[in-house]
């Protein structure tokens, strides 16, 4: 008989994840920022990076949110193909909404979510379409991964329809434009993990860039070696502008640059740029039906299955199971 993952475990784990995301800076980002602080020689931008390192420590010591703008909490749920949730997916969504509302009060988080027109605030970060819950699947496994991301929302992101004739130089220019426009005065809260989405349809282009920034870690590289080389080159390019934290003179703007692609219309080359800020808040847990829970900070979202490009999925390892 198929074992179900208990709903109570989903809700309690989700609440813990909300707290971890708000308070504990992920180690990969922290290591990246420490490297940046070691190399930074701008007076003011150096001061800013050192203050941020102190801030992460203070947040963990006091168990308080690292930033007063605690972002807009959202969820990514990955399910192994054999995973079953007690009460089904509607129950799971209910548990994630309850965990979001509960943690907003208990941590506390800032109740950022309001109606776009009437500015109604339920003081719990829950409302129409909030928190977003997105899904992914893997070919095997009876587990679910719960991933929460609390990304700041106002600056640093842009979209543009480019065309094949724009080429790599056009991509570079739009990338630089985004860094210049939102880096000044530190509106993007850099140094950031920059995510670039290339291709897909317009909405998916935005999604790819967002996921590249929030669902990949500092130091990860795209599985396509030519895209991986672009990631290195773009990181270097962003850090050669001469702009650092808060838009002050400095050499650290980009902690890492992650690029994700999707097939697009033959006539176009849509591009999006996203910046995951100095409070790159993400937390992950894997839950099994026997009640085991493992916490981590790497979403490990972009598996070979997520990046597949063939009609059918027939990996060799499937046969072994």
């Amino acid at each position, binding site marked *: 008989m198929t074992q179900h993952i208990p709903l109570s475990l989903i809700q309690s784990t989700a609440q813990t994840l909300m707290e971890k995301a708000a308070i504990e800076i992920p180690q990969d980002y922290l290591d990246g920022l420490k490297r940046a602080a070691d190399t930074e020689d701008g007076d003011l931008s150096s001061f800013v990076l050192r203050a941020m390192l102190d801030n992460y420590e203070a947040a963990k010591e006091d168990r308080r949110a690292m930033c007063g703008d605690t972002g807009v909490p959202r969820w990514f749920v990955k399910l192994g193909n054999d995973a079953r949730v007690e009460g089904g997916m509607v129950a799971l969504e209910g548990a994630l909404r309850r965990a979001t509302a509960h943690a907003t009060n208990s941590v506390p988080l800032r109740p950022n979510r309001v109606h776009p027109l009437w500015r109604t605030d339920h003081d719990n970060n829950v409302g129409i379409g909030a928190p977003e819950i997105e899904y992914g699947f893997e070919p095997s496994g009876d587990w679910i991964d719960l991933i929460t991301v609390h990304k700041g929302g106002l600056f640093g992101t842009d979209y543009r329809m480019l065309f094949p004739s724009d080429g790599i130089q056009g991509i570079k220019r739009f990338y630089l434009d985004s860094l210049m426009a939102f880096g000044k005065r530190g509106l993007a809260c850099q140094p950031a993990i920059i995510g670039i989405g290339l291709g897909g349809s317009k909405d998916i282009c935005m999604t790819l860039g967002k996921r590249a920034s929030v669902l990949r870690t500092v130091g990860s590289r795209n599985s396509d070696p030519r895209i991986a080389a672009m990631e290195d080159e773009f990181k270097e390019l962003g850090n050669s*502008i*001469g702009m650092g934290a808060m838009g002050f*003179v400095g050499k650290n703007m980009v902690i890492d640059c992650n690029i994700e692609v999707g097939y697009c219309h033959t006539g176009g080359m849509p591009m999006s740029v996203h910046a995951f800020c100095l409070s790159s808040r993400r937390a992950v847990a894997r839950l099994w039906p026997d009640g085991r829970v493992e916490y981590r900070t790497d979403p490990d979202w972009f598996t070979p299955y997520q990046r597949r490009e063939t009609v059918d999925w027939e990996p060799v390892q499937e046969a072994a199971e």
Partner: protein
Amino acid sequence: MKPREIRLSTTPTPEAIAELRLGDIVYLDGLMYTAREGVYMRALEEKANIPMELPSESAANFHCSPAARINADGSFDMGAVTATASFRFAKWLPEWMAKTGAKLIIGKGGMSSRDYKEYFVPNGAVYLSTVGYGTGALLGRGVENVEAVHWNEELGLAQAMWVIRCNKMGPFIVASDLNGDCLFERENAKIAENIARVYEGTKPAVLKRYGETDDRSDEVI
């Protein structure tokens, strides 16, 4: 060179403000209140009475919504505190400063030197920027007490007027002075020298946009 560190009252004397130099690091003591679009609209457009004695109680306006809660017994818990971008509030600030005598405007990213010259300097006021952004936990440690929260029912937790007692709250960076000079514009000008080299080899997008500029020394705010 290490920036200068200064303790400053939230009801500062004119002399203390005149002392401040661009790039100084400031720590605040005294009462501070949060006010952003919700408070400005309610006080200035709906003409509601401001529930504090300003500027005698506080001359420090923080563009902030804290990560905080109101407990069932009416007490408050404030976790992290950081600022929101101030340029969006230029519409209300001249009237707000005239009405409340605010001398310290505290937020994210500063205003333009035009704003500073037009209504900060005549009011003897300067802009302090939060650091990072943002050092929410460090600033939270500087909150000695939450004295009150006003207009919570009308505006919600995020837009309400929080009254905070600060004890060495910081760090903040002095981003404008009594000449009306702007720290961020000074930094922009230094960075601008390098722009042409970084953009070398790139070309404008095939499909243009309305209002597009190719002058990268421009800002978008």
